[in-house]
């Protein structure tokens, strides 16, 4: 409750021209097919459109597999021994320069069609859980003079936590959209409620999507 109350307070005062909507790994698992995902996708789409009307830039922060010896990293070793998944295949995207990226159709995840990035959206590709680690995200946010980050992550608790923690350390105000926070996390390693409490207690704020939409309108 405290988190919601705080979010309500700041929403009234947030200058939206200093805000960005961060879609952190907005992927859905290819299998199993998620039931009732259409409603959430449609809600995120509405938020994206309403944000755009208020001048809020949408930034996609996407896991990818650059050809930098990722398979030799500790993260890849962890993926192998704990999840039994090759990291480069897990992170690969179906587009990009093959000299720069491992690229192919990803059989684990994809961005739902209605949420595909549009021409005026920004895309940052990351190769670690945090969107800030060795990427251009902080540079982009500084160039756009962004202070407030509204964050959505449909399925990845790890990427959301790592990115928002770094965002907070880098002096951004981080606000997670509650219902969309790992709502499709099929591993369910952390229950959504625990994740939201963690975000509120360690990183920043959370806000209901409906309240956010109302504030935007």
């Amino acid at each position: 409750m405290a988190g919601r109350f705080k979010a309500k307070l700041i929403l009234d005062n947030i200058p939206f021209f200093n805000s960005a909507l961060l879609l952190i790994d907005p992927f859905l698992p290819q299998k199993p097919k998620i039931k009732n995902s259409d409603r959430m996708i449609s809600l995120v789409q509405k938020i994206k459109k309403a944000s755009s009307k208020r001048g809020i830039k949408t930034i996609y922060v996407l896991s990818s597999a650059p050809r930098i010896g990722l398979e030799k990293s500790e993260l890849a070793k962890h993926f192998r021994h704990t999840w039994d998944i090759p990291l480069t295949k897990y992170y690969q995207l179906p587009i990009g320069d093959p000299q720069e990226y491992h690229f192919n159709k990803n059989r684990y995840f994809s961005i739902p069609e209605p949420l595909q990035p549009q021409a005026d959206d920004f895309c940052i590709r990351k190769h670690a859980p945090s969107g800030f680690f060795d990427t251009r995200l902080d540079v982009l946010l500084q160039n756009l003079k962004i202070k407030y980050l509204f964050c959505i992550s449909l399925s990845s608790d790890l990427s959301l936590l790592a990115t928002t923690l770094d965002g907070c350390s880098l002096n951004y105000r981080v606000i997670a959209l509650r219902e969309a926070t790992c709502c499709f996390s099929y591993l369910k390693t952390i229950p959504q409620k625990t994740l939201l409490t963690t975000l509120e207690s360690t990183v920043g704020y959370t806000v209901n999507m409906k309240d956010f939409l109302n504030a935007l309108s």
Partner: protein
Amino acid sequence: MSMIFNLNLTYSKKSQSDEQTFVKNREILALQSSETGLLLVDVALGNQRHKTPASFHRDDADWLWDRQIIQALTRSINACRKAGIRIFYVQNSSPRIATEKSEFGAHARRSWNCEIAGLFAESNVDQNEYSHDKLKKNEFPDPLRPEIQDIYIRKHAYSGFFATRLQSALRYHAIRTLICGGIWANGCLLSTSLDAFFRNYKVIWLADATRASEKPLEFKNRKNTNRFLEWFEFQIGYTLTSIQLIKALNI
């Protein structure tokens, strides 16, 4: 298969008799090939600079110099490939990150009369991530073209380390020493080398595989290039030539 090789390097050392004077000195370093990387900075010099043009003028010193650099880089790349030394490319690019609103963008407008955003647009990139131009791409001289096993990092500032994956790549490959060449000795190569040095890498320049920008009157003697080579030996690391590298690798 990793091997140890000895490099005979030049560095700058304070004179014992005169506090203000620095003299060239030599040191032999034993390096492990698996812990050494060849770092090539902005070597997409176009695909014509290494060829003899149809209308070749003997006094085309600028072209000749580029060709010498390309030959030195080619020698070094071939030798490193044979020795199992990994090759890292860092190359200018134009990611869509609102660079036009940055101080770098303002500087480019103010001093160079150009827009930095989109300057290095390419055809073979994801349009969501990079500025796209179907008619443009980074053209490498044939012998310098990266191979699929090489590491290719796109940068958007002078330094190859600034907001890129270069440090991740070097860590994953357990690299501790960087042998560097490319353009410019007073620009991107310098900035990248400084950042490498502060990140605790041993930095070595291939003296014949780089150049600095030169004023017309200083061009003939390569004065500015020599100035920056000396400055590098004085402030950051070591130098050697591509021929010395090949000899050391015994290729």
